[in-house]
């Protein structure tokens, strides 16, 4: 029996932030969960995949985050309590679906988890600050600091969503999602699979002009009502100085650590909602202060808001933030300690300059079938005369020495579109690698475009029957998925004439096919089919 499914309440169990999110959803009586795996959010899906049946919850790994959200919107419109989880880049993918969903609002209460990854521990393409979505999307954003708050804020999110019929975002970061602590649980409701009902309501679910602008007004009205909740829930800790700190998320923990380490008693204001902002409370907090330090990761987001509010509440206030803390990379406790020491004059010296003595890069596992692909490609072509494309998955490690088969790397599904652009712009040979899960995620439209607009890259789809990099989640053609989808047939149906499925164990065939296809005047596709060594074949 999984501890996360324990019916009893009042226990304290050690949970990872992501596990606490699952528990919070279960305690809220979630009915429907969808996700696309992405670190640091992956364990949310992994845990639901394991327990959904026992818990009486519908769960799916969708083909991408946009689909996951759309599926969730459908469940919410049908009245089900819905959770959708993704990493930050997934939000970019589903933004198109999210914006109208905030207009229509949710019917079944809906919480969307988005995990940022400051310092890009598990992210290749960019370092994102999802909090910046606030004024674009107008979705309420809750920011937990630790696993206990992950559980509590997911429950709070469902309550807010239920009360105001609006989806609520819970935004975590790596150090929250992958933080562990003893978490206090509440009782689980008796699980029962719930059937929803879609009740027609055109005014509510159809965002057609001119109705869409009325919806926007209604959205702003909701936000102002939620702002009142935000004002009451913000956490203020009194202090005895005229120097204060405003913070949120994991940064709050570093603030507490710094204050206890430096033996300081400063007032601290900790946000629960980073949107809508508790403006009144922030104004009253900064009113009596001489200096305020904003402790936040990445861009000066909250700092700008506080500067704006200070103009109304306390124009003499000195606002500190990104002049003392980094804009790039995650915060560390010692950075906050130093910043606090600087504005208070309390001595703190960093022990020594930052030293990073050893950096060992990740590598493809020994026994990975991709080694066979690399070997065949290197034997088939002069690598200096071919451009190599890559994208997100284990095969992005092709960029590391000694492999060096990656001349560009961007987001999921992008390598085919970029390949087409390069082919149209140059007369160079090009081979691009696309993972199986990436291909289904967003590679197919780009492949169709290549056929439609006619260029001739060689696309090698790496089918290892799993979404390996994020922890071996299933996808449409993974073993056990039980679909009739066949990548070669799909590719051929897209109009690709030169397509071949090869097990890279057959090196000579692979080498010969790379040579042959690279000379074609039309797009060609090799599907390399060999399971990841961690895939256990289903009997």
């Amino acid at each position: 029996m999984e501890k996360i499914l324990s019916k009893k309440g009042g226990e304290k169990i050690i949970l990872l932030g992501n596990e606490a999110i699952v528990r919070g959803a279960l305690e809220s009586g979630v009915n429907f969960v969808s996700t696309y795996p992405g670190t640091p959010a992956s364990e949310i899906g992994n845990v639901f995949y394991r327990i959904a049946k026992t818990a009486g919850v519908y769960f799916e790994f969708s083909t991408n985050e946009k689909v996951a959200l759309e599926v969730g919107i459908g469940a919410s419109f049908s009245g089900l309590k819905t959770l959708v989880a993704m990493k930050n880049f997934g939000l970019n993918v589903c933004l198109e679906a999210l914006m109208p969903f905030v207009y229509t609002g949710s019917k079944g209460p809906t919480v969307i988890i988005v995990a940022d990854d400051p310092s890009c521990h598990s992210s290749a393409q960019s370092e994102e600050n999802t909090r910046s979505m606030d004024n674009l999307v107008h979705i309420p954003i809750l920011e937990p600091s630790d696993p206990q708050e992950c559980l509590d804020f997911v429950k709070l999110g469902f309550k807010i969503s239920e009360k105001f019929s609006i989806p609520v975002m819970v935004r975590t970061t790596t150090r929250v999602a992958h933080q562990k602590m003893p978490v206090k649980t509440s009782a689980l409701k008796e699980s029962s699979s719930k059937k929803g009902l879609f009740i027609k309501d055109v005014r509510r679910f159809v965002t057609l002009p001119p109705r869409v602008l009325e919806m926007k007004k209604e959205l702003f009205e909701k936000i102002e009502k939620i702002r009142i909740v935000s004002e009451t829930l913000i956490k203020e800790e009194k202090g005895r100085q005229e120097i204060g700190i405003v913070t949120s998320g994991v940064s709050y923990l570093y603030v507490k650590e710094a204050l206890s380490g430096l033996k300081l008693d400063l007032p601290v204001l900790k946000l629960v909602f980073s949107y809508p902002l508790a403006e009144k409370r922030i104004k009253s907090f900064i009113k009596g202060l001489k200096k305020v330090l904003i402790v936040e990761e990445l861009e000066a987001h909250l700092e700008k808001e506080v500067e704006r509010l200070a103009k109304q509440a306390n124009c003499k206030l000195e606002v500190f933030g990104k002049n003392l803390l980094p804009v790039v990379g995650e915060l560390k406790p010692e950075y906050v300690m130093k910043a606090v020491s600087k504005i208070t004059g309390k001595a703190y010296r960093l022990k020594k300059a930052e030293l990073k003595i050893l950096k060992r890069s990740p590598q493809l596992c020994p026994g990975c079938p991709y080694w066979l692909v690399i070997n065949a490609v290197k034997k088939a072509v002069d690598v200096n005369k071919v451009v190599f494309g890559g994208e997100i998955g284990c095969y992005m490690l092709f960029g590391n020495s000694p492999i060096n088969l990656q001349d560009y790397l961007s987001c999921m599904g992008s390598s085919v579109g970029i390949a087409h652009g390069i082919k149209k712009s140059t007369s160079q040979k090009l081979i691009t690698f696309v993972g199986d899960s990436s291909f289904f995620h967003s590679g197919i439209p780009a492949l169709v475009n290549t056929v439609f607009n006619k260029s001739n890259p060689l696309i090698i789809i790496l089918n290892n029957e799993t979404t390996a990099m994020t922890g071996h989640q299933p996808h449409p053609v993974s073993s056990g998925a039980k679909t009739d989808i066949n990548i070669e047939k799909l590719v051929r149906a897209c109009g690709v004439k030169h397509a071949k499925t090869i097990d890279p164990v057959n090196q000579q065939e692979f080498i010969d096919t790379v040579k042959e296809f690279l000379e074609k005047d039309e797009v060609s596709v090799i599907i390399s089919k060999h399971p990841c060594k961690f895939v256990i074949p289903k009997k």
Partner: protein
Amino acid sequence: MRKKAEQFNMMIVGTGGQGLITLLQIISEAAVLEGYDIKTSELHGLSQRGGSVEVHIRFGKKIFSPMVAQGKADLVLALEEQEALNGLYFSNPKTIFLINQFIVPIPLKKSLSEAEILLQLKKETKNIHLVPADKICQEKLGNSVVSGVYLISLAAFNNFMPLSSLSIQKAIKKLMPERYLELNLKAFELAKKN
């Protein structure tokens, strides 16, 4: 009865796939059994593919940050010799280094010699314990996979951390899947004898 630590900061450094997260779980569980508040931080995903990995474990009366601050580690457990150098960011002259005498080569790089590694560490602290845990577990138990469990047990028996060996043993029993339990308990017992 041992005096309770106000705060204990531990780093485990190694390479992806060496089982750092399992060790983190055992120590966290043991700390909770002894009534401590705990916070930990770990990394998943890209960092697991054989790259340098570090996990943070903090316990005490009340713990806020999941990350150990620079220079604040009480114990650095290195599951690989070269990775021990990554512990230096977190160490101070009082820090104990418990190091597995085991080298995982870095592709395309010449491995650092043990003498070079020790030279650098000795500039910082005298408390360096180099233990051939992989070799011991391979010889005595026929499997080096439990070298990490052997080392944390050793840390408990030698009072390198304020947790009793009994709590570590209880945590191993609670967390290990049945088919691996016996081997892990043997590693624990082996640490007792050495």
